[in-house]
């Protein structure tokens, strides 16, 4: 009995909980990508760097707050600073839109041109973020890091295996669920949300219906800034902040958005978990679990690993490709431009 419990806890501790947290992190990022794709109709390569900028801004404010002796009790101070970070990021992306993207909307540039433009923006933001906060790794989490640590759990239950749950993991999951619900509600139920969808569907006709495109675009960018900053900060709290890593996050985030179905908030969530869990589960070594569950005589020698972790990225992409073969526009029917 104990053994089975141990096996379950081991699985929870090393697969389910980290997978879920990572999935939620990806999902939050993917929500931003999917929103830009859905409303403004291009794949925004600058999203990773928007996240990085938002996080950098939040970190600076966090330091200010800490310097002033303000903290958030058991929760990380960064959460207090988050609204300011979002504000700054919103200013940045709105400025970017005014300065850059608007022109391409005017000339009705093809989506792929916008993709390239966003790549240019990515380079610039990349430089700006590094300029503001540098390239080093920064830890800005304070407050209680754990709801329960592995050791506490072991002492509490007397099991051999520990179970660690971090505050940030829980916050991320909760925020991701709330964000997707809000976004879904906003897009499908509110006037502004519907006008945004209308704009994305047929810009000319939206104009003819009296929808103000600039407003739609502005609202979209503000939402994107909020999502990107939140995603970035939560990720940074859970792991750490580093400009380069945020840029690297772009690929799994895109993969999540695509596999879930572009333009669909639910898809972003589903996609995030698919990507995260395929990374963690397929390369999981079952040795530990097997050792608990099987009788001693059958205890495995090898790792019982289907594939080395070196292939985890490849595996998650392979799963993505397979999903797409059966669902060509993602799990939740997404858009294709």
């Amino acid at each position, binding site marked *: 009995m104990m053994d089975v419990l141990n096996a379950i806890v081991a699985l929870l501790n090393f697969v389910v909980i980290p997978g879920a947290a990572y999935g939620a992190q990806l999902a939050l990022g993917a929500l931003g990508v999917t929103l830009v794709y859905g409303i403004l109709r291009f794949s925004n390569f600058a999203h990773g760097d928007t996240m990085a900028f938002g996080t950098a801004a939040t970190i600076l404010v966090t330091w200010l707050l800490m310097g002033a002796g303000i903290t958030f009790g058991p929760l990380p101070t960064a959460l207090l600073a988050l609204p300011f970070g979002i504000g700054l990021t919103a200013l940045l992306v709105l400025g970017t839109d005014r300065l850059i993207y608007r022109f391409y909307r005017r000339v009705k540039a093809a989506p792929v041109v916008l993709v390239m433009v966003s790549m240019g923006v990515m380079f610039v933001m990349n430089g700006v973020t590094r300029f503001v906060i540098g390239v080093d790794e920064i830890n800005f989490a304070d407050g209680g890091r754990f709801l329960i640590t592995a*050791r506490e759990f072991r002492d509490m239950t007397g099991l051999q295996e520990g179970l660690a749950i971090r505050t940030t993991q829980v916050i991320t999951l909760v925020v991701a669920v709330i964000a997707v619900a809000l976004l879904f509600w906003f897009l499908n139920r509110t006037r502004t949300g519907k006008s945004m969808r209308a704009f994305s569907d047929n810009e000319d006709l939206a104009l003819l219906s009296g929808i103000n495109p600039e407003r739609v675009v502005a609202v979209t960018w503000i939402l994107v800034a909020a999502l990107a900053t939140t995603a970035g900060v939560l990720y940074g709290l859970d792991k750490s902040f580093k400009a380069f890593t945020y840029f690297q996050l772009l690929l799994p985030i895109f993969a999540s958005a695509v596999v879930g179905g572009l333009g669909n908030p639910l898809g972003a969530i589903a996609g995030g978990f698919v990507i995260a869990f395929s990374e963690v589960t397929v390369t999981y070594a079952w040795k530990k679990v097997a050792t608990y569950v099987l009788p001693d005589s059958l205890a495995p020698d090898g790792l019982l690993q289907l594939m080395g972790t070196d292939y985890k990225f490849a595996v998650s992409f392979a799963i993505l490709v397979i999903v797409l073969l059966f669902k060509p526009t993602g799990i939740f029917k997404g858009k294709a431009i």
Partner: protein
Amino acid sequence: EDIKIGISVGFTGPLESLAPQMAAGAELAFKEVTDSGLLLGGSTVSSVRADSTCIDAAAATAAVERIVTSDKVRGIVGGMCSGETIASLNNVAIPNGVVMISPSATSPALTSLEANGLFFRTSPSDARQGVVMTEIMQERGIKSVAVTYTNNDYGKGLADSFQAAFEAAGGKVTINAPHEDGKADYSAEVAALAAAGGELLVVAGYVDQGGSGIIRAALDTGAFDTFEFPDGMVSQALEDRFGAEINGSFGQNPASAGEGRDRYVEMATAAGFDGTSAFSAESYDAAALILLAMAKAKSSDPAVYKAEVLNIANGDGEVILPGQLAKALEIINAGGSVNYEGATAVTFVNGRESAGSYREIEFKDGKLEVVKYR
């Protein structure tokens, strides 16, 4: 004369957070020499930075091409990663006859590369460190470990040589798995490492990269709480980041008995950067070697001074530590001989690379402490 020396490291790219401290290290040596006014009758040394990107061989080649053919540098501290180093060596440095001393390229391929006497490195070969690690572990009675390495030639080479040495000594490596730097999440890696088990986890990576991510995840999930750190990991950042959480962990990095490395770290701190950052000290040494060799050869021409590098590194005169470059120049100018030890105990084997004497460190009460030298 104003002597230009190139610094070719990856200011952008995956190791971008290591590069500034490496460049600063080399420039510290330049400044020291310039200020002494003793090199080749008062020559100044100025630095020309080139971004080798660490990963893009073509871009690195072009950047080195620029500083060699356009800026006419007389020697290069760099490159950073082995692949890019070999490319710029073969395509630029050797054809143009420029000396390159790499602080951080550790690939075994560089040991035997036909280089016309133009290539050296202040980092020891991976094989040596594997042996040292094994010794340390045996002394501590450790029999079974899990290994994770950064998936490049440095990590792979180190992990393989360690595994070979450790297993030869009767130890058991439960798993030897790579991790990619700069990735968002390391749960999968840690899950596999935890499943394999072991008394401790060897992290053959970079502290500013995936290495920290792995440790974080391993600590958080309770998979491991003691670690062994090779040279890419041992730095102040490790202490700052994890402190007491990794009490009892240990590691090693190149340094000689005597206070070479400590002096360097002090100098770096005074100059406003972190001297414990990986390969920063090696960069200082690389720069110093080039300059001292010039002094010894009485020429800044690489074709001439390349022959003296070895004499400086393995000389039999007075031992030179960081901050003593002026003294060294005096001795050399007076016709004497020096033995450059620098911050990382520079002694060359195979005619071009550091033999590697190491110091063993351990974390006690959240502090990095030196245990002994070997």
